[in-house]
């Protein structure tokens, strides 16, 4: 069993829809949770970071962590074609090594 499970999709939504992405994990030592966005032919870049259970908002993006269920989510409101990318969840404990999900490819149709 992988430490971090993420449905690879692909996910296709119309412009303006809410995109919902999620990951589950098995390692209860994970304390820091991140979402990276990766555009085609580019390296991943950090989108959202959180370290506690609950919600964190940044513009159209909301990251949600439920440590009791070992489940994290990313919501994108009012999705735009420019949001089309692969979204990777990542998490770590107290060291500096990240464990990544497989990534979900999202296409927002104009």
């Amino acid at each position: 069993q992988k430490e971090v499970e993420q449905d690879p999709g692909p996910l296709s939504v119309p412009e303006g829809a809410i995109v919902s992405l999620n990951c589950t994990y098995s390692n209860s030592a994970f304390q820091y949770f991140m979402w990276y966005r990766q555009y085609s032919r580019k390296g991943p870049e950090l989108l959202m970071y959180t370290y506690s259970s609950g919600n964190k908002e940044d513009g159209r993006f909301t990251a949600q962590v439920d440590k009791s269920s070992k489940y994290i989510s990313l919501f994108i409101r009012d999705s735009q074609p420019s949001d089309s990318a692969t979204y990777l969840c990542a998490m770590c404990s107290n060291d500096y090594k990240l464990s990544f999900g497989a990534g979900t490819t999202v296409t927002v149709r104009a």
Partner: protein
Amino acid sequence: DVKVTQSSRYLVKRTGEKVFLECVQDMDHENMFWYRQDPGLGLRLIYFSYDVKMKEKGDIPEGYSVSREKKERFSLILESASTNQTSMYLCASSFGASRHNEQFFGPGTRLTVL
């Protein structure tokens, strides 16, 4: 802006060749990482380094070695390339004591081994 650069965007090599992938970061980061990215498997850690001349194996080190002679540069070496090493290779760096553990990635090198 943090910048992580990789020596090549695309590389084609033959089976058995020795391959060098170079990575340079300009933010004085202590930690540097090499990943490979394959469809459906996500990013898998090959090797990482937390200081000059220090290295540790990641999850899939077989067939690879690394070198870190200077703080800003981290090299990945394929001693004898094989077709199953065809992949996207990503380099990343981070601060040593970063609370966020944010890793900054380079643009990647797509390696094809024929």
